């Protein structure tokens, strides 16, 4: 199980390769990668991600432990960046490994739903017209209800 919170870029492809190669008895690996999107009408200068050092790591480890136990995962990984990012950069990724694809998919979705609304990260979009904190989407809060 791995949790990494960092400013440095990461290579999602290399992470998948490493994560997969250590799985000896899991036939299914699912990854999610979140990428900074450009703003449709107002080009993004950069995105700034703030987090709560200490609580972030604890929250992510707890979310991973819960997922591993609930879906009997062989392994789980969460990487999340903070600091300044530009459009096209990878923000974060999760990876899950399991015997069966259903568990790997569900656990990855669960991790993402919790990460979105329960891990202490906040995004601010800096564009030509000014800067705005990204508001929580009500769908993201609702998404938690299914777990």
């Amino acid at each position: 199980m791995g949790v990494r919170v960092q400013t440095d870029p990461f290579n999602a492809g290399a992470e998948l390769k490493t994560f997969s190669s250590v799985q000896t008895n899991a036939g299914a690996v699912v990854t999610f990668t979140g990428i900074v999107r450009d703003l449709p009408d107002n080009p993004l200068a950069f995105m700034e991600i703030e987090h709560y050092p200490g609580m972030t790591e604890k929250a992510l480890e707890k979310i991973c432990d819960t997922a591993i136990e609930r879906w009997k995962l062989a392994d789980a990984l969460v990487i999340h960046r903070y600091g300044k990012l530009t459009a096209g950069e990878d923000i974060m990724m999760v990876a899950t490994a399991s015997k069966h694809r259903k568990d790997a998919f569900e656990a990855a979705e669960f991790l993402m739903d919790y990460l979105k609304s329960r891990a202490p990260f906040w995004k601010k979009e800096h564009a030509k017209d000014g800067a705005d904190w990204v508001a929580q989407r009500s769908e993201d809060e609702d998404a938690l209800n299914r777990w």
Partner: protein
Amino acid sequence: MINVLYFAWVRERIGLPREEIETNAQTVRELIAELSAREERYAAAFEDLESLRVAVDQELVDFDASLSGVREVAFFPPMTGG
């Protein structure tokens, strides 16, 4: 003494990332009332509790959580990770 942390627009409205506060507040809600009475920038930050979240010793709690024995309280908007 409680270490109080502010993140995102809560930090911006209050104008600082953290401070040490001497308080007799028994709950988070009482601490918020105390701070809001102190200065307008606090009142502005704590105006709408619906749009605020709070963590006590790095665990999410609700506003009625006790402050007994607590070392760290953090206020912030709903999280937007991922």
